[in-house]
């Protein structure tokens, strides 16, 4: 009995390239799910900020004008530059120049530390000026309590961001070490790319924190 079977023109097995592409897509999806949870974490704080800003517009403008806008702008420039070096690190890691990639990652870490140093100096300045509710708060305007609320939100949001950045700096370091001990890994540039996604996300959070805390008056 003859049976005509229709064979597909090409075998159904995915090629190595297709498998790799699929793995990378799954990695990116997982990372974006994690980042979505981070969006909701920071988003909740932004929501609280806007609700109270809507309730006390004058006090929030007053609190904002107490902050050092130039340090905020400088830190934005530092973080944007660190995103460029991170993107270049991923680019170099995807290519074949692992050494250049490590160099760009070290530069990214240094810029992250510079951001934290400037932020720390700013916190110190805020403390000296009596802008830290609970520790040293000497502001005495008509809407003292609402200005204190603004400053509490400022410290919580920037400190949570600084915590994320610190974790990011450590993770970039981990990626460098990982690349050194496993140079012939299955897909060596993938950890760099994933940590890059996290780094750029932290940059985006600051891109919104800067106008919201320093510029809205």
């Amino acid at each position, binding site marked *: 009995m003859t049976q005509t079977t229709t064979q597909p023109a090409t075998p159904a097995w995915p090629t190595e390239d297709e498998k790799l*592409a699929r793995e990378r897509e799954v990695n990116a999806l997982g990372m974006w799910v994690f980042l979505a949870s981070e969006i*909701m974490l920071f*988003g909740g704080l932004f*929501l609280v900020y806007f609700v109270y800003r809507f309730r006390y517009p004058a006090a929030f403008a007053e609190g904002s004008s107490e902050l050092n*806008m130039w340090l905020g702008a400088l830190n934005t420039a530092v973080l944007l530059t660190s995103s460029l070096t991170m*993107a270049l690190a991923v*680019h170099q890691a995807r290519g074949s120049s692992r050494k250049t990639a490590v160099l760009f990652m070290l530069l990214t870490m240094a810029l992250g530390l510079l951001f934290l140093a400037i932020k720390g100096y700013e916190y110190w300045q805020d403390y000296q000026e009596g802008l830290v509710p609970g520790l040293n708060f000497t502001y005495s305007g008509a809407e003292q309590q609402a200005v204190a609320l603004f400053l509490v939100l400022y410290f919580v949001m920037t400190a949570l961001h600084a915590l994320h950045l610190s974790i990011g700096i450590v993770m970039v370091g981990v990626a460098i070490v990982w690349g050194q001990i496993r140079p012939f890994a299955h897909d060596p540039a993938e950890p760099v790319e994933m940590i890059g996604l996290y780094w750029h996300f932290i940059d985006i959070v600051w891109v*919104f924190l800067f*106008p919201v805390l320093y*510029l809205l008056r």
Partner: protein
Amino acid sequence: MHNNYPSVRTYFLVFGALLLLLIATVGAHFVALGPFQPVVSLGIALLKALLIILFFMHVKASSGLVKLFAAAGFLWLLIFFLLTFGDFATRYWVPTLNQ
């Protein structure tokens, strides 16, 4: 999949655009824009975030599924804001309720 990633030149162009937007937002801070001030500074922040997401985070070069996952988080955030301000922004539209 990774052949359509941005080039080094694109990264530097995006970085240049980001710095220009930063200068624009700081500059706009010193211009009396009145009620448009928050619109301008938040609009510029949105533009910056979009540039970072599309080019630095490779979303523009990614598959539709990755694009969907990337958009989902922001979409839920938008719903979060819309529903909350649907309440807070309209509460005092009916004065009798608050007397």
